[in-house]
């Protein structure tokens, strides 16, 4: 949770609100995608420049966000991710059987998007077995236009985050991790 502290004040308060319904739920094994400790210790403290860059969007969000909390809708949460974590462009929440549940406002509405995420996660889970593993933690699509990070949320949902290659994955992860349990069952 050290990463959380690195975020600007405004977003920290959002985090705290958003995290309330999550307390005591990190037991779900599919949410244990935390970067290996090696990566964690190597992480430098958030550079001053990124705090500066964050200040503007966070301040802009401060007004219209009384919605965060147990009843917050997932769309607002995904928009918050796009606005608060630099280089994140869009995010989609889908059911594992391919229905769209929420998407950030920056994402167009295409029926095939959630279906493709479901198919990719379905296949990736089988590839985990090929790799000798048991549990899929993360699927990364690394392409010339950026990165797509896809996580299973519990047994029923999938979250995809579209970002520029330069994104600080650690920050996306900590944002999502803090809300994963909630997103895995939030009403669509």
């Amino acid at each position, binding site marked *: 949770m050290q990463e959380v502290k690195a975020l600007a004040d405004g977003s920290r308060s959002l985090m705290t609100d958003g995290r309330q319904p999550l307390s005591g739920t990190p037991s779900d094994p599919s949410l244990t995608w935390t970067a290996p400790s090696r990566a964690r210790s190597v992480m430098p403290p958030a550079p001053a420049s990124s705090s500066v860059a964050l200040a503007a969007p966070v301040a802009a969000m401060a007004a219209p966000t009384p919605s965060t909390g147990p009843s917050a809708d997932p769309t607002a949460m995904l928009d918050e991710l796009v606005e608060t974590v630099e280089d994140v462009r869009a995010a989609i929440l889908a059911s594992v059987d*391919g229905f769209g549940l929420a998407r950030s406002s920056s994402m167009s509405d295409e*029926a*095939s998007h959630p279906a493709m995420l479901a*198919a990719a996660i*379905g296949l990736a889970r*089988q590839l985990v077995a090929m790799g000798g593993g048991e549990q899929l933690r993360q699927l990364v699509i690394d392409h010339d236009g950026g990165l797509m990070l896809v996580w299973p949320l519990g047994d029923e949902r999938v979250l995809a985050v579209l970002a520029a290659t330069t994104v600080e994955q650690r920050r996306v992860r900590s944002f999502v991790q803090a809300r994963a349990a909630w997103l895995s069952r939030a009403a669509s």
Partner: protein
Amino acid sequence: MSAQTFKILVTGPFAAGKTSMIQSVSQTQVISTDVFTSGDESDVKSHTTVAMDFGTYGLEGDDTRLLLFGTPGQARFRFMTDILKGDVDVVAFVIDAEATETHAAAGVELRALLRDLRTPAVIAVNRCDDVTVARRLARSLGALDGEAVVPCQLIDPDSGREVVVEILLTLLASMESSKAEVA
């Protein structure tokens, strides 16, 4: 037929019996991508295929092998059919005779697929015991007169094997006709 591997595309609407068929006939462990259904679809069944099923079937004493690629059934997963349909030798189109509400869309899909692939098809009419009924349904979906039609009960593994036999016969026939064209 010897030392040959054929690719079979097993497709058809949601809940028609595609995964059941592959699971009942495959001689290797089926790679499947079943997940829990949600919403209205959970009223129909508890699980659904989201990417593909993959199974194999080999003839004893022969090197002939069928690779069975099953698609998801819902329109939102159409891109998987597009991915899997390359170099297909036979299309096995599975349809549930009793799920009449799926038939119109299935017909559109079958006709488009056959026009596109130009491969022979086997129409497996699930939950049906009557050849005449099965043929009539297949024709209404746009199957050609020469297309093989198999009434089946895919909940029963033996029934799945009858579909495989039709697939093998269809392969044999298409090989013979292509040989005749060459000659």
